[in-house]
């Protein structure tokens, strides 16, 4: 091709600055390595550990790919995410469930996703945090489903490489990123603005999303107090504006009916393929219990959900073995308490499912 002269946007010759690049490169790499080691020790000192995986959409998508055939799948929000220990469940039942719960997210979108998947014929354990379950949108991490459907080969490869590094370095965690550190910096509040709802790290994940409450939440009193404060902020920020009587408006019956109808339709699809669905409520206490039970009375929400979908429902309030476990910050079981809880709830679940199957067979 002939060289163009008169309309070339610019000469593409790239000058290289005249420096001792070899020495500069070695110095920069060495200094970065030293700083990185220091950074790693700093975060290990704060309780971070290697092999605590980031709770990313890619990790969720990896688990979602395992939710096929006759797999047992857990969906829900943070209570069941942190509260069921997969190792203990497997010990107790011989079955290792796939953990698909995501914090702050309604399980209804995951139930719909599984119901629409013709390859899924297994059991679904739905963790019900009533305000989230009956919420009007998918919640905090609803985008995970779209990510799973649209995940590109480069994103999968990136995730595979990232997991290798997360197995080595403790500092690779959402909490340690400069952006996150700036976001949680306790800056003064501008006049008229609500306090920011942005909870710090709460969970510790294994590669297969087997998750427990991060140890520091239970051992560091300041950290724990801040976590509780955050729940109050979140509850206040998300509360609907009060009605004419000054009280928060109750959810209309029609809206509850619609949710139960939607859930029932999805359950039917899964049952038509030979699968089944059961509901679980995990324990909560303190300020959360007062707020949640007042705004979402059991008879209007939980009882109707279980009855009208003709499902097994295991509420911690109904079984002595599921009560008295250590709930760290009103909403989540401490790691060892979660193991005990799992040990107690697994046989209750299988017994209830067996009983329900017998009842259905007798009809």
């Amino acid at each position, binding site marked *: *091709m*002939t*060289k*163009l002269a008169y*309309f*070339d*946007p*610019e000469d*593409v*010759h*790239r*000058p*290289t*600055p*005249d*420096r*001792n*690049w*070899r*020495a*500069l*490169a070695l*110095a*920069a*790499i060495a*200094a*970065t390595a030293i*700083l*990185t080691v220091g*950074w790693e020790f700093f975060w290990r000192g704060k309780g971070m550990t290697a092999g605590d995986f980031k709770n990313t959409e890619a990790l969720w998508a990896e688990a979602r790919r395992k939710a096929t055939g006759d797999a047992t799948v857990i969906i829900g929000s943070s209570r069941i995410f942190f509260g069921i220990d997969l190792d203990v469940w497997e010990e107790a039942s011989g079955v290792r469930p796939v953990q698909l719960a995501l914090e702050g997210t309604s399980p209804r979108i995951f139930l719909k996703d599984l119901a629409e998947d013709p390859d899924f014929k297994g059991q679904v354990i739905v963790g019900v945090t009533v305000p989230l379950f009956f919420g009007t949108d998918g919640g905090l991490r609803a985008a995970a489903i779209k990510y799973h459907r649209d995940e*590109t*080969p*480069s994103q999968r*490869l*990136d995730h595979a*490489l*990232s997991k290798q590094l997360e197995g080595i370095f403790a*500092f*690779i965690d959402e909490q*340690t*990123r*400069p*952006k996150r550190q*700036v*976001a*949680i*910096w306790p*800056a*003064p*509040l*501008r*006049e*008229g*603005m609500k306090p*920011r709802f942005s909870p710090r790290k709460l969970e510790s994940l294994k590669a297969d999303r087997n998750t427990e409450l991060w140890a520091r939440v239970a051992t560091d009193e300041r950290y724990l107090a801040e976590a509780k404060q955050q729940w109050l902020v979140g509850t206040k920020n998300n509360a609907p504006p009060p009605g004419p009587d000054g009280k928060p408006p109750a959810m209309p019956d029609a809206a509850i009916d619609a949710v139960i109808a939607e859930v029932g339709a999805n359950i039917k699809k899964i049952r038509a393929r030979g699968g089944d669905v059961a509901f679980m409520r995990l324990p909560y206490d303190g300020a959360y219990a007062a707020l949640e039970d007042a705004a979402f009375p059991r008879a209007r929400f939980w009882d109707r959900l279980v009855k009208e979908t003709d499902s097994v429902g295991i509420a911690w309030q109904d079984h002595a073995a599921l009560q008295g476990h250590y709930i760290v910050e009103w909403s989540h079981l401490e790691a060892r308490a979660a193991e005990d809880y799992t040990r107690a709830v697994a046989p209750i679940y299988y017994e209830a499912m067996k009983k329900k199957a017998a009842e259905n067979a007798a009809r």
Partner: protein
Amino acid sequence: MVFFAIVVALHHAPLSWRVKKINLLLASLIFYGAWSPPFVLLLLFSTVVDWFAARWIHGATSKARRRAFLLLSLAGNLGLLGYFKYGEFLLENFTHLLNAAGVAYKAPEWNIILPVGISFYTFETLAYTLDIYLRRAAPGKSFLDFALFVTFFPQLVAGPIVRPSQLVPQFAEPKRATRPQFCWGLALIIIGLFEKVVLADSFLAPAADGAFGHKGALAPLDAWTGVLAFSGQIFFDFSGYSTTAIGTALCLGFALPNNFRFPYAAIGFSDFWRRWHISLSTWLRDYLYIPLGGNQKGRLRTYANLMITMLLGGLWHGASWTFVIWGGLHGLYLAVERFLREAMPARDFYKSLWFRVAMALLTYFLVNITWVFFRAEGFSEATLFLASMFAMAPKPDRVLYWNSILPAAIVIAGMVFTHWRMRSTTLESVVEKTPAWLIGAVLTFMLFMLVITQGSDSAFIYFQF
């Protein structure tokens, strides 16, 4: 990084130049396929159509045949763009028109995914056939070189929009980076990634997303912080990609052109467009503005040509009227600037520092007005945002925390100051004059920040264009 390391290793392996080029071509196709494998076929389609169209144009004996083969190339490239990028937009507007005319019509759902980088590579291949048609160049001799030019992975998905004349000749002879070139290429990659991952994503995106994501009126501080943060976010995001692409190519021994030259130090809009997305502005100049007649057909035609060029330049960014308005505003600014330059007599104070600084700040201010249309979801959101900036919106909300405002303010102040200081120089010459310890410290800081930031939250903004 692993992909790049494998490509560099193969490029430095003792293989023939032809085998190395085939390696680069395959690597580029794998790179593109990593987003969406089926769209590799579109890329190959565009490559093959333009390769043959250009040869047929060159060999055609009549004007009509030349025109017919050019139309084939235009139909192939613009057809791809029209279907994948503008199909939904056209259908929506067609539906609105019918409905306005009283015809009850409901458009079918349009679920077409936009192939990444389609606007970039279609413009590159179009430049090839247009050069041949306009007799500015002869067809290339090697299909391999041409295919590598179209698919060359560093610039494939978000530019710079490289011309055939800039890159194809570089594939003719064996290329391998010297050690200084390789190290400088790595330094450019670090700088580019730092711009994107640290500055754009970590420190500017929270303010820009927080302000533009709010449904409703904003307090002036929030609106101004949002738009200024976006001006930095879009610059660091796009300039970061271009710089990384240039560094990557340099590590392999190839030179790509600059795409940015400290644009927020521009004095006036003709200066701005010589500094912002240079590869697009020169493409539009050479293949649209000049063929339309440029400034050679009278004053009114010049203004009209400027407007047409910038309106289409806006539409290039996306299928939305807000992009058209963005382009239209830039066209208007260019036309007004041209008018003022011709109408106002030269004065000595035009060269004074205070006047130049004032004009640069005025340019930056007016550019920020256009960014509102570029970033807002729609026209009504953009007008509400503008009203918020000038304290004219009812019931404004405060939505940004100091955690977002302060980092954005610091980075924006640093960016504008740096652009002004670097206005008349280049990065290379500054690096050459700076003490070695300071260069080492800056590179270490950037590399360390990249390590602890742990990657990006989002794709490059320009991937969607």
